[in-house]
């Protein structure tokens, strides 16, 4: 008896499965099997000797295998969605998700799929969610996809143009939008990722008066703050700060007359140095302004601009910038995908460019997309035209290149939830790149 107790017999849709309670325990308490084996319910098993489950046996077999091995193998004849639906029934969806793809590594990425949406192209931004989902901003809409790449109700902003989006957590998305003349709208809102409902609207007040504003680039910090580049109606330009918990505005950093903050292309919160990187770049402005703000002392603690740089470096217009805290540097990229580096520890230093132009010779498409940068797990990613380059090591050596032929150039990409999403500019297509689960041996 003692040995038999570990054995569990299921009749799933007429097919008999035998497994052990130990295997089923891998499903966790918050699953159907967890409840079923709980002592509260265990009484009846002695009478019938087997559990009857009125579900699809083929899918059960796949999921049982997942519980046994931790690996997910879906036979070609079973649609993935069917597995997902059954997993949802048993409460095993999280187990499926974690088994579906491996830990992110820029050098081992494979294309897992491409999604074509209904929007007319020219996407603004794509953002990866924390659990493997993503959202894509087009004009005044945000399309939200979960990790199964099912589209949820979109976020719709009544013709206001969206500037940036971001995930606060798997349930909440913040959208920043342009203000329309005379309408007093725009600004930033918090939306539910599952229903697309507006949950909260962030406000800016100047001198105790609530003002309408245009919100641009955003960044989130791990201590629950939201930063956004803001343009007010009466030249109230600067960086607004909100508390994610209360939703209240907690700070505002006004830009000085000779500098640009309110129209930034990129904000990046630097956790270790407790500073915010603000980068305003060509062609939004004629010149490029990069600065670090320390909100504790209300001061710009580091800054760089190409104002007054010699004409000969005209070609080296900075198109994107990203701070790398591990090496105390900022990485820049120009329109030819040359990488440049600056030291964060001293102000007034120059840019050290490492030219890769020769590699790009003769490859410029008619409608180029200018480079964007991302940093993930010590790997640097740079998108240029229709491909994404991966750089590794202390010297940032090019180690991999991700490319797909259709959809045109990549206008934006994002890494999160152990996936990389790349949005194409000509057609409304985005690619999903995943790291496969580790090899068997």
């Amino acid at each position: 008896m003692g040995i038999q107790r570990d054995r569990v017999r299921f009749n799933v849709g007429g097919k008999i499965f035998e497994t052990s309670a130990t295997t089923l325990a891998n499903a966790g308490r918050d699953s159907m099997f967890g409840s079923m084996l709980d002592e509260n319910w265990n009484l009846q098993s002695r009478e019938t000797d087997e559990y009857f489950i009125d579900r699809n046996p083929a899918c059960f077999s796949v999921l049982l295998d997942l519980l046994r091995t931790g690996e997910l193998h879906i036979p070609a004849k079973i649609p993935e969605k069917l597995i997902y639906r059954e997993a949802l029934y048993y409460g095993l969806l999280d187990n499926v998700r974690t088994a579906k793809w491996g830990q992110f590594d820029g050098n081992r990425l494979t294309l897992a799929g491409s999604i074509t949406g209904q929007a007319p192209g020219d996407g603004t931004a794509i953002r990866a969610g924390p659990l493997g989902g993503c959202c894509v901003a087009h004009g005044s809409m945000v399309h939200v996809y979960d990790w199964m790449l099912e589209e949820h109700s979109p976020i719709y902003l009544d013709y206001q143009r969206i500037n940036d989006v971001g995930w606060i957590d798997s349930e909440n998305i913040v959208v920043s939008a342009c203000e329309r003349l005379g309408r007093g709208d725009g600004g930033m809102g918090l939306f539910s990722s599952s229903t697309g409902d507006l949950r909260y609207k962030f406000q800016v007040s100047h001198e105790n008066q609530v003002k309408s504003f245009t919100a641009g680039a955003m960044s989130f910090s791990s201590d629950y703050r939201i930063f956004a580049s803001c343009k007010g109606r009466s030249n109230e330009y600067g960086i607004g700060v909100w508390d994610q918990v209360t939703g209240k505005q907690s700070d505002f950093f006004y830009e000085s007359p000779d500098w640009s903050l309110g129209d930034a292309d990129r904000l990046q919160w630097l956790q270790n140095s407790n500073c915010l990187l603000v980068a305003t770049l060509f062609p939004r402005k004629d010149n490029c302004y990069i600065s670090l703000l320390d909100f504790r002392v209300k001061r710009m603690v580091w800054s760089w601009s190409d104002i007054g740089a010699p004409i000969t470096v005209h070609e080296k217009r900075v198109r994107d910038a990203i701070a790398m805290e591990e090496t105390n540097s900022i990485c820049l990229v120009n329109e030819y995908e040359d990488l440049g580096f600056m030291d964060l520890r001293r102000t007034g230093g120059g840019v050290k460019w490492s030219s890769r132009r020769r590699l790009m010779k003769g490859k410029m498409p008619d409608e180029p997309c200018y480079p964007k940068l991302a940093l993930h797990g010590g790997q640097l990613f740079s998108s240029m035209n229709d491909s994404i380059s991966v750089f590794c090591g202390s010297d940032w050596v090019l180690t991999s290149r991700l490319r797909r032929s259709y959809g045109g150039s990549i206008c934006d990409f994002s890494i999160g939830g152990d996936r990389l999403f790349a949005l194409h500019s000509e057609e409304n297509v985005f690619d999903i790149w995943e790291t496969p689960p580790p090899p068997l041996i």
Partner: protein
Amino acid sequence: MSTPKRRNFQIEAFKHRVVVDPNYAEKTWKILEHAIDEIYNHNASGLSFEELYRNAYNMVLHKFGEKLYSGLVTTMTSHLKDLSKSIEAAQGVLFLEELNRKWADHNKALQMIRDILMYMDRTFIPSTHKTPVHELGLNLWRDSIIHFGKIQIRLRIILLELVQSERTGEVINRGLMRNIIKMLMDLGSSVYQEDFEKYFLEVSAHFYSAESQQFIECCDCGDYLKKAERRLNEEMERVSHYLDVRSEAKITNVVEKEMIANHMQRLVHMENSGLVNMLVDDKYEDLGRMYSLFRRVPDGLSTIKEVMISHIRETGKQLVTDPERLRDPVDFVQRLLDEKDKHDKIISLAFNNDKTFQNALNSSFEYFINLNPRSPEFISLFVDDKLRKDLKGVSEEDVEIILDKVMMLFRYLQEKDIFEKYYKQHLAKRLLSGKTVSDDAERSLIVKLKTECGYQFTSKLEGMFTDMKTSQDTMQGFYASQVAETGDSPTLAVQVLTTGSWPTQPSAPCNLPAEILGVCEKFRTYYLGTHTGRRLSWQTNMGTADLKATFGKGQKHELNVSTYQMCVLMLFNNADRLSYKEIEQATEIPPSDLKRCLQSLACVKGKNVLRKEPMSKDIGEGDAFFFNDKFASKFYKVKIGTVVAQKESEPEKQETRQRVEEDRKPQIEAAIVRIMKSRRTLDHNNLVSEVTKLLQSRFLANPVIIKKRIESLIEREFLERDSVDRKMYRYLA
């Protein structure tokens, strides 16, 4: 905001058969409702989990989630009504037990219901932003049981009564108590705080306020503290057994406030058992308890500290001003050290070596030691005593310990320069008479003084050591050059002292006996021959001599005497009787010294190598002295000490003081000039305070004297007064 078409999208993925039976939802819900009833009736064994799970799934799938959820709320609420009735009906002790039992039942039922409705919990509830099943079950329990009129009040009263009876020594069912409190915490920290903790703290405050009143009337301080400590520990133990850990700070706060903070003054000043008595009787345990308890309340430690300071100051003041004590400087200093040791020990054993207490102790010592102007002198005398005799044969470490203690007292002194003066005198005496116990100990103390006060302070003292060393070499050189001529002339040992380094008083040289004079002249010739540009003068008041004397019956003795005494005794080589006047004339020793010297030769029993007429204790100008033929001693060597006042006599003290004052003048002036040179202009008050600060490590400068020095500097045109603001001084380069 979304189009209806999009909303369907999610459902599309889960396309299912169309429900035909219009009563489908009602039927399915009945099955589930029945199951919930059976679960609450402890009759779940007949239920099929899989079937119920599937039914709940189907209801959600077919968009009857809302019906399922509202049905759940209604059913659960009605079951909770039943539970509340049976809890209400329970009487007395059974009430809590029934509540606990029903709570356990409800929890189990809730878990099983959640198991069945898991699919709804996972899909329907998040998308409609409803309360999850488990939380819903807790909320309903809270609203229908815990916050239900009579139960709420009864529960609170019973819990508080149980705590009260445990406080009065009864044993209660802590396990039950823990379960009930845990239930309140499970319902949310606000439930625990609002329904229990708030009242618990209130009642506790009442209880301890009354109890402390009662204790303080009948207990002495030590007992009271013991009781307070026990109560505090009891409350902490209570928290660890059945309350929320976050209550610990709150309840200890109540006990601290009621039992300690409110009675602090009374406890500290309690007659016959308060803090002062504890300090006097070295009650380390009680003191330690007081420290650890008082530390918990605001101003607790400062209260202890203040009383301790005033006590130490008071006893210290008595110690240093008691004329009885002033007779024996060594004992005086020893008492200070004992007092310090006593309190150091209290601070280390009972007060956790608290820095602020150490500082308080130091400032108290500084206060009372300086109440007695003779403290510097006494401390130096203490050192002198130690270095002369007490330290003989003591191990190096012990010597260090004693010296460190002396340094500690030294640090308290405000008039360090006076100590230096005395120290110099005493050191000179030790060195010249060769009485010092250990050269290492002497040097060690000098090093300590140097680290404490700087090079300047000890340079002269070090000079004295150098002189001693060079003198030795000089003497060797002298005798080496005199080999041929050493007959039976007396052996001379000269110590050449640098003027200024030594506390020499200019004294009229006495007439040395001819035998000595010869050797002295030889030495002078030798010394001036080897060194140019120097002047030697004899300090006859400081030397010693060994004389071989033969008394009646041929008894031979070696007499160890001072130079003056030698001069006197040598006169008796040629005469048996000499009058005071004759001696004074022959030797030209200053009268006061001569009197003292004769006194020690003629009046001290056992050492009276001279006889005096008339026989009396004091020396008169008309006295006559005889060679005492009958002198006898069992020792071959006889040391005839001078009758010296170890302590300074009143006029000497005045003199020393005056000399110190005189020495301070240039130091004060130097300080003024140094400050004014850097500041250029400064007003009077600031100048005085800066000068005081600058000189602090040496002495406490008197403002009146500083003012005099400033005036003198103005006269000599180092400074001038500002023509507009008379209080401002200006530095004249």
